[in-house]
């Protein structure tokens, strides 16, 4: 195994520089008893050196398959992988400078913590003294000092998790691969490990590919997120790009909450879309979608609600960048820091809104359930997306 002689405390993640891994047209077909299943359709992806890249998507979308192809445990049916420009096609998994952290941790039960961590180094025939030194360093980084002689069964879930990570980073892999490593931990520990893991990754500067189906994990940890669905990539971007500028209904809906508004295209010219929406018209920058499949999405926190005595008399208005429509408040759900509101517009459309609370503006300042309301929404908050993908729950 190529153990890269990179200093352990490396450079900070700098997602602007070179490409570490290039995935080119990777397709994976599984031959099963019930026929052929195309788990990956044709994946193209560039993983930047030192970045923390998350692959996010619902269960069964092919995340693990993609990760296992990177590791070499599965062979792609088609396509190629390049690591620092060199093809990995004929490189067996044990010769790839990648280390994987498994959901089940996969600690060797017959070895102590120290032996587990030293395993990869022994295989690489590193000298005893260096093994000792590197193991000690990793034990202290991972906050495992004093646990070296324990067996994995004598550790808590969080400790086992850290040993699994230690065992992977100690060989100084070029790329670290994670398959839902936190999903076996309880919620509190998960949050703690999340920032721990990110800290260590930053400290080591190692390129990391992290698979999860938990969107908040992805948002919190990643430099970039790859959203996958049914074997293909929906969108790649930074967490805020993915949240604020989803390109498809699927992404908008999978990441956070979104109001989906039925729209028809009135005109499309010079990069501007004019859309018929809620009995009025708005103009949005054209993301370059073909007209037949456009829907508009709006985040609940961009919907402002205020009382209105007679919503039936209200005429929808589009003035100074704000769209105003009237309706009735149908649901109020108080959650402490915020309240979730459900509004039924006059045309029957249901709209979700979130009101954040502060000491000065609490739930008592909101209209009561059943009240007439008017909602105002900044036009800039609307986002036209491709409606091609069906909504998944």
């Amino acid at each position: 195994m190529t153990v890269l002689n990179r200093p352990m405390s490396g450079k900070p993640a700098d997602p602007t520089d070179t490409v570490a891994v290039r995935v080119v047209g990777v397709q994976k077909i599984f031959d099963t008893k019930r026929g052929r299943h195309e788990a990956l359709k044709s994946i193209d992806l560039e993983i930047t050196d030192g970045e923390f890249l998350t692959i996010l998507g619902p269960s069964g979308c092919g995340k693990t398959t993609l990760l296992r192809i990177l590791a070499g445990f599965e062979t792609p049916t088609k396509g190629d992988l390049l690591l620092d420009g060199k093809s990995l096609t004929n490189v067996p998994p044990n010769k790839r400078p990648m280390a994987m952290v498994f959901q089940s941790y996969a600690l060797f039960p017959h070895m102590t913590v120290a032996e587990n961590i030293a395993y990869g180094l022994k295989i690489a025939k590193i000298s005893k003294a260096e093994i000792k030194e590197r193991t000690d360093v990793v034990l202290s980084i991972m906050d495992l000092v004093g646990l070296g002689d324990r067996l994995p069964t004598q550790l808590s879930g969080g400790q086992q998790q850290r040993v699994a990570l230690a065992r992977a980073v100690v060989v100084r892999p070029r790329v670290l691969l994670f398959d839902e490593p936190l999903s076996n931990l309880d919620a509190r520990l998960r949050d703690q490990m999340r920032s721990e893991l990110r800290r260590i990754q930053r400290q080591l500067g190692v390129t990391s590919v992290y698979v999860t189906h938990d969107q908040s994990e992805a948002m919190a940890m990643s430099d970039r997120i790859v959203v996958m669905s049914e074997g293909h990539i929906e969108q790649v971007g930074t967490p805020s790009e993915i949240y604020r500028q989803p390109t498809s209904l699927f992404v908008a809906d999978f990441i956070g909450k979104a109001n989906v508004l039925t729209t028809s295209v009135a005109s499309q010219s010079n990069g501007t879309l004019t859309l018929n929406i809620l009995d009025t018209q708005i103009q949005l920058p054209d993301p370059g979608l073909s007209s037949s499949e456009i829907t508009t999405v709006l985040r609940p926190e961009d919907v402002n609600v205020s009382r209105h005595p007679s919503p039936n008399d209200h005429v929808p208005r589009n003035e100074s960048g704000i769209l105003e429509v009237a309706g009735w408040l149908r649901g109020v759900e108080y959650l402490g820091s915020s309240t979730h509101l459900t509004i039924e517009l006059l045309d029957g459309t249901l709209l979700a809104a979130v009101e954040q609370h502060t000491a000065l503006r609490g739930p008592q300042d909101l209209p009561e359930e059943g009240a007439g309301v008017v909602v105002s929404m900044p036009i800039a908050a609307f986002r036209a997306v491709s409606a091609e993908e069906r909504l998944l729950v």
Partner: protein
Amino acid sequence: MTTNQHKSAPSSPLQPLRRLAGSIKAQGSFGVAIAVALLIVGGFVIYPTIRIIARSLGVKGLEQWTELLSSGTTLSVLRNTVVLGVLSGLLGTFAGLVMALVQVRTKFRFKRTLHIISLLPVISPPFAVSMSILSLFGRSGLISKDLFGVRYDISGLDGLLLALSISFMPVAYLNFVGMLQSFDGALEEAANDLGGSLVHRFRTIVIPLLAPGIANSFLLIFVSAIADLGNPIVLGGSNFEVLSTGIYLAIVGEFNQPKAAVFSVMLLLPSLLIFAAQYFWLNKKQYVTITGKPVGTPKPVEQRNVLIPLYTIALVITAAIVMIYGYIVVGAFTQVWNIDFTPTLENFIGAMNGASREAMLDTLKLAAISTPLAAFSGLVIAFVITQREFKGRGLLDFASVLGVAVPGIIIGVGLLLAYNAPLFGGLIPKLQGTATILVLAFTVRALPGVVRVAVGALNQLSKNLEEASISLGATPAQTFRKIILPLIRPALFSSLIWSFARSMTSLSPIILLVTPEWRIFTERILNDAQQGRYGDAAAKSMVLVTVILIAIGFLSLVTGFKVSNDDSSFAK
């Protein structure tokens, strides 16, 4: 789903073989191991079986078919075989279930003793039970004649039923112990909370959950019972012939190989059918359930109306086992069994000297070769079956356990037919009469058990462990050595023991293959028994069991392992 299929038309009949060879090559260092495994199974299980079938369909074979199928004797042989199989299956399963229930679900004080008694038949030579039964209940039996003064002769169906149910009871026992222990107690508690009575609970929860185990045990005992040879030879008497004895007599008495082949096919058919049914339906479900840790332990049964019948039946079974085995010891240490009870060591002196000593040494030598061979190839096959994807994997899996389904006597006949002349223009010499063929018979016989044990152990290893090792830079071979092997060592140890005990005690596969140069100990015991020298036979049986126990002790000293409490590995 759009996929471009690359289908290549099979250009020659050799195409599948070539593809198989290709996929073996792609496996690298494991390819060789796979090839060896395929060779053992193909050459010494499948090929001999095919030779038998071919022989039975030859001109003389077809004559035999018409002749045998129209004769009343054959029909009664067939009927005897089926009746014996079905009744032994029922009785053995029932006895095993009762013993397992007492073991797992009660607070019985001497469980450990009971466990050992229940497993006693596993290591006894195949027909020692029959000799003892004959001496106790035969025409001039100790109990039947001397105690009750009846002229009852147990030989025939009655005796065989008793002998076979006791001999194969451990199969069912271990099966049920495993199942009952892995029961989710929570399920039963839930039923209890819903107000079900104990009997109701048993009928609605326990029995349906045990149903696969009952079916499995019954079928296993059925197959083992119809394949058994030693007991029918000793206990069958002149008027209770079964297929296995028919085959044996056809070869050694009538020198009629076509007849043996036809009988073999008759015996093979039900065995293979049942095996296939089990392989494809029953076994599938089991691996899934075994792995999970039980969520709650079921409460011991305390109701007297259940305990009393349960204990009574268990007591009867235990008494029978103790009496039958105890009487072997009596026979071994007395002058003439049943007649002259003067204590003596003569039988043992005979058993440990002369021809008997030769036979023991020969058997040990052969088993010393076949045991590691079976353990190693079984391990490799199991590894390949569980860890590797390659074409022909399913076939290897099926074939490696096929050895269980093929009755021992048929393996013997098959090896005899297949290797009685040089093959491939002398490339493979005539094996008949050599030690090689005996070693091979031992090996293929022990192989399925080893494969089963190892597959079970490997299935409990998460595939991620192997992948974690590889991802840290270890080659597959290093991973096997450093991760997999240490983790399955206990299983490996059980399989070594299993394969050794199996080799030392097996009779039917080798009885047709022994030669004056290579004597087998069990065959010597049978010889004594056939000539009425029961004292000698009993002493030899005890020597055999002692040697096995010493060897197990020695093995555990060498490998540093204890024989585990739950020897579920011995099942089957």
